[in-house]
């Protein structure tokens, strides 16, 4: 390729992969808590705060948990650099 690639795309791609990672994490939590705890006979369910435990962990803890994970991950790993059309620091990009 003749042109030099926009150095910000490496970070953008990494952030996209991290987002997908959080998505997979949420899916795994959702799936295993719901069907792991909730597959048996409802007569044998345990309850947390009045709710069946599978529901409590999958839907309530899962939701609050992923909100916190997104908050922490975005604050820690997502850049707040320029998104303008021109790459501002193209010279450093090749070294990453």
């Amino acid at each position, binding site marked *: 390729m003749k042109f030099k690639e926009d150095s910000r795309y490496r970070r953008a791609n990494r952030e996209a992969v991290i987002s997908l990672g959080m998505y997979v994490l949420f899916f795994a939590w959702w799936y295993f808590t719901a069907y792991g705890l909730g597959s048996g006979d409802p007569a044998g369910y345990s*309850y947390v705060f009045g709710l069946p435990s599978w529901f409590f962990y*999958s839907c309530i803890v899962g939701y609050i948990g992923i909100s916190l994970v997104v908050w922490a991950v975005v604050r820690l790993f997502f850049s707040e650099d320029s998104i303008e059309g021109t790459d501002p620091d193209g010279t450093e990009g090749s070294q990453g």
Partner: protein
Amino acid sequence: MNNMNMILPLAIYLVLVFAVAVWGKRAAAKTSDAKGFLEEYFLGGRSMGGFVLAMAVITTYTSASSFVGGPGVAYKLGLGWILLAMIQVPTAFLTLGVLGKKFAIVSRKVNAVTITEYLRARYKNELVVVIASLAILVFFMASMLAQFIGGARLFQTVTGYPYLVGLIIFGITVVIYTTVGGFRAVVITDTIQGCVMICASVALLWAVVSAGGGMEKIMAVLRETDPALLTPTGPGNAIPRPFILSFWVLVGFAVLGLPQTTQKCLGFRDARSMNNGMIIGTFVVGFLMLTMHLVGALGRAVLPGIEVGDLAVPTITVKLLSPFWAGVFIAGPLAAIMSTVDSMLIISSAAIVKDLYHHHAVKKNLPVTPEKLGRMSLIVTAVIGAIVFLAALRPPSLLVWINLFAFGGLEAVFFWPTVLGLYWKRANAAGALLSMTVGCGTFFWLMIGKIQVGGTHQIVPTIVAALAAFILGSYIGKKPDEETLAAFWGRE
């Protein structure tokens, strides 16, 4: 008299929305050229901050189905349907995290104001543009119609006023403020509507839980009614696993194809806005899904015996809340509806004015003044709104069907061309064309024939077929030229 009490908060709310839209219009930057006008009217001058961005994505995504249809099913099927609704929690962070930053940079590089313009710049193919514009117009009109009908019926059920009155009140409101204020009015009103939706859902859930004598008591009643209401699979295995898992596609990652939400990725101010949008959006969408669907599921214990699912939420509202608070609540779903319709309306208008008219005018060197474009944008927005409004006067009875069809259809057309255009350099026009036609064709064929593969929703084989078509087409067609690649991936 009771009805008047109910109308009052609603009237105040609608006036407020109007006022804000007009104020947003005033706040709009003055533009002196045609390009500036289009970027302002259709994209608010790319000025959205984090909170507004989050609300704009979320409220556009949450429609009548999240407020009325979904909770209605939860009423019938119990907690399992809430589990299904929670699949939508990642909508905001997935859309913004996967597409946001790259879309923002790319759209500035190639000056794209709409998704269709991005597709035009990436694939350099008129047929791609025509199919994209047509898909947007047809599917958006169908969805807007369904939203209008849903809203008017809801209004009728709760207030007792005729269908027509509700349709006129909120239908005309949304068409006028969108026409006058453009994208800026859309996102500002979306933000207010998001807040109204949150308040409404909290008020109703609180009313349900206290009427039922607390959570433990409600669960005991549900267990007595039918123990399966407490399971992830629902009564009579109504929510089997392959079915619920395919919602991870339909309302899961395939939402990356919905032009009404992905378009918001072009409109935020800076990276900080996007990062904040991911955090706030995730929190808000999960909150709305959880509270509203809990209202439906728990409502079964408080007010049993509602036969039609769509009537569950309106009935619970009227029975449990005083007229004034019912009026406040009803603003919630109406807000959900209006905030979905306004985005679709502005994008439909952009499809005609920007993607089709302005592009050809520029190509043929026709003189295009901001005044002319301004007049035209206003007229086109108003006309599309009027068409949908008139269609809703004599509604066809297939509300849910049309809506689901449009949702999956948009994903079938836009998902791979949008995502792969950003992330795969080999992606080209042949791939995009093949993916759009095969995807859409497969989806229609499977839906109409009610054909299911392995118990999954039709969207699953559709997305797979569209991917295969995209890859095949891309390797058959020519590599994208150096100029396109440099425009998208280069530094300038």
